[in-house]
């Protein structure tokens, strides 16, 4: 079965650079979530989209922005990168009208390292 696809898997950037992370949800899933997991930490919710509109906003810095496109894929844009942005970034998708209520399915993540 198709899963959530994230690219790239690894990304190395320098301070003050920009980065773009991509997420392709499971087909027919209409909601996408972004989470950030720092070293030894639990995943923290950043932002979500439902039917291409921002749905919820969590602890996303102002330097970050995201959007969901007409094909339902989503991109997380990160600017003025800081050392503290080094983390695993997970995307999850969900079918809002699905039987499985709020089961979110996660991608393998993008490991961002800011040097």
């Amino acid at each position, binding site marked *: 079965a198709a899963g959530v696809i994230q690219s790239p898997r690894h990304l190395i950037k320098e301070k003050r650079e920009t980065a773009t992370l991509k997420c392709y949800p499971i087909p027919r899933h209409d909601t996408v979530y972004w989470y950030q997991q720092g070293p030894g930490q639990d995943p923290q919710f950043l932002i979500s989209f439902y039917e291409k509109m921002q749905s919820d906003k969590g602890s996303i810095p102002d330097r970050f922005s995201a959007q969901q496109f007409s094909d339902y894929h989503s991109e997380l844009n990160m600017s003025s990168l800081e050392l503290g942005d080094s983390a695993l970034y997970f995307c999850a998708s969900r079918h809002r009208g699905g039987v499985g209520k709020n089961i979110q399915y996660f991608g393998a*993540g993008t490991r961002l390292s800011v040097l």
Partner: protein
Amino acid sequence: DQQVKQNSPSLSVQEGRISILNCDYTNSMFDYFLWYKKYPAEGPTFLISISSIKDKNEDGRFTVFLNKSAKHLSLHIVPSQPGDSAVYFCAASAINSGNTPLVFGKGTRLSVIA
């Protein structure tokens, strides 16, 4: 403040025995709970969930128990297998309040010893 707490960072269990992972929450608005398993270099994999209208949900070797009055849930794995060794995250959401993002605990690392 941590709204979902997994107070045991690690747990070791003999193969074939029961693994019990615990999770406590503080937000009484949470009404849907999930357990995820995570291997290194992979994303969290959904295991099992439970709605607040139930107190037990079972799926094969995995059973989740929910005690709403104590704001406590637990995941039982019986029998435990070496392949179950992973980090287990408890997560919660408040769906009926329209709040669907998951709030995670810090995880418990389970080691199943052969």
